[in-house]
């Protein structure tokens, strides 16, 4: 059998980043990156935006450039699936029955769209992969009708893209407002208003009763008795971590694959990173969190690589999220829940930044909505202050002329 190397299951942002970081971190042995999809590794954020909006045939948004794996001698196994992990023998078994020996193993299996179980659910589409995106895209355009179930990031970004392509769009959200999870109401309301201005029929606080699949179009029945005719129905109701392999291998699970602060699972030779894992966050009282976020996947990919090389350190990156909808840019640094006070700063052009402070004055999170040039610098500076557990003066935070940068030098 071959020399044991570094084996990575999952070729998304976390897995691909880890592969590169292992080589850059000095690992000279084999590196195998195993991906279920046949495409080279690509970025998922553009799937709901640039890929939907592209004028011609959409281009696969590659991670890095194509020759990177050859340059770094990384073996990319495309279209390959791992069927089992043998922790005693330290091998992973592939669906072609090959066994790959590992020195350290990284699980970067990501998350899958949560499936909606409802009458007629066979008509539903989901958006996670490039092929999902192409399938949805082919059904959008002037005169076409899209129903999005779920007012989360993916659904709303898709709604915005579809409107920009001329489709008529209805978004149905069961909760009283969109973006209930993680986005302050003040900003969610701003985004809801923007969608309505763009002509989206946004319906909140109403459940889906059933889908009535048809040959050319489908009927979407709501709990209030109304029916919406659609050429395309996409459900974006969240994601569940892909823990199947970890579970079968007997690793500890806790809202995903449970890892410690160095991203190591209950087996010291197996790490996990990205959407699939939950980890304790020191900035938030060691609370165990799981993030479905692009930057987190990147940061954890390289952090897990360091842990695989025996140089693991506590993962303390401030959670960071963004979304683009129409001309609006949303950025959130940190976790706002647990905040006692919210300070609002009006930064002009309708843009706003919110700072969320704990009862002891510590900055927990900052979130901004507006043109990117109005919000990005300050949210980024706030992120650095959050990382330092800074207690900025609330009056200064509220003032549009106060430069957060001046606090960093202190």
């Amino acid at each position, binding site marked *: 059998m071959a020399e044991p190397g570094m084996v990575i299951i999952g070729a998304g942002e976390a897995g691909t980043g880890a592969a590169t970081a292992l080589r850059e971190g000095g690992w000279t042995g084999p590196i195998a990156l195993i991906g279920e999809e046949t495409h080279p590794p690509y970025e998922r954020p553009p799937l709901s935006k640039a890929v939907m909006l592209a004028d011609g045939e959409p281009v696969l948004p590659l991670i890095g450039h194509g020759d990177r794996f050859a340059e770094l001698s990384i073996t990319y196994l495309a279209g390959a699936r791992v069927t089992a992990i043998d922790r005693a023998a330290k091998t992973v078994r592939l669906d072609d029955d090959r066994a790959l020996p590992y020195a350290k193993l990284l699980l970067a299996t990501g998350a899958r769209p949560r499936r909606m179980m409802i009458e007629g659910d066979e008509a539903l589409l989901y958006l996670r992969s490039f092929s999902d995106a192409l399938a949805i895209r082919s059904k959008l355009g002037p005169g076409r009708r899209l129903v999005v179930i779920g007012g989360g990031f993916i659904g709303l970004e898709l709604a915005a893209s579809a409107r920009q392509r001329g489709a008529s769009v209805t978004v149905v959200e069961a909760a009283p407002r969109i973006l209930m999870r993680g986005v302050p109401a003040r900003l969610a309301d701003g985004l809801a208003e923007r969608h309505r201005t763009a002509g989206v029929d946004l319906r909140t606080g109403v459940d889906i009763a059933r889908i009535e699949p048809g040959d050319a179009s489908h009927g979407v029945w709501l709990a209030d008795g109304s029916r919406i005719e659609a050429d395309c129905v996409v459900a974006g109701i969240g994601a569940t971590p892909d823990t199947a392999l970890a579970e079968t291998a007997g690793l500890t699970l806790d809202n995903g694959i449970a890892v410690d602060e160095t991203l190591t699972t209950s087996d010291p030779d197996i790490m996990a990173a990205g959407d699939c894992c939950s980890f304790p966050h020191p900035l938030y009282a060691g609370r165990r969190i799981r993030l479905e976020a692009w930057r987190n996947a990147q940061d954890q990919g390289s952090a897990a690589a360091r842990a695989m090389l025996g140089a693991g350190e506590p993962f303390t990156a401030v959670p960071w999220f*963004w979304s683009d909808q129409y001309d609006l840019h949303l950025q959130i640094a940190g976790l706002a829940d647990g905040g006692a006070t919210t300070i609002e700063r009006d930064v002009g052009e309708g843009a706003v930044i919110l700072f969320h402070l704990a009862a002891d004055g510590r900055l927990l999170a900052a979130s901004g909505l507006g043109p990117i040039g109005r919000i*990005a610098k300050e949210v*980024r500076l706030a992120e650095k202050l959050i990382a330092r557990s800074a207690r900025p003066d609330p009056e200064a935070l509220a003032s549009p002329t106060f430069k957060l940068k001046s606090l960093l030098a202190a």
Partner: protein
Amino acid sequence: MSAQWIEACGADEIDEEDVIRFDHGGRSFALYRDEDDGYFATDGLCTHENVHLADGLVIGRIIECPKHNGRFDYTTGQAKGAPVCVDLKTYPVKVEGGRVFLRI
């Protein structure tokens, strides 16, 4: 066409350790001033996605893309790691009579 010096702005129009946007001839640039009054210029758009770097944060000799925190050394244009892997093009800059010029 041979390269020429183009007057861009007043030297004091850029704050210390900051960046502004400068458009000329259908192209867009980012002009930087470091903490020691050094002036630099690069292409305006990040090499990762079409986002203007003038909206990003300058810390020391690093400009961060406002969208995905791709980092570049703006004095050399060098990409400093994921998600950016393509260097930024840089342009010579001079300051004369309190005005900033770049050679394009």
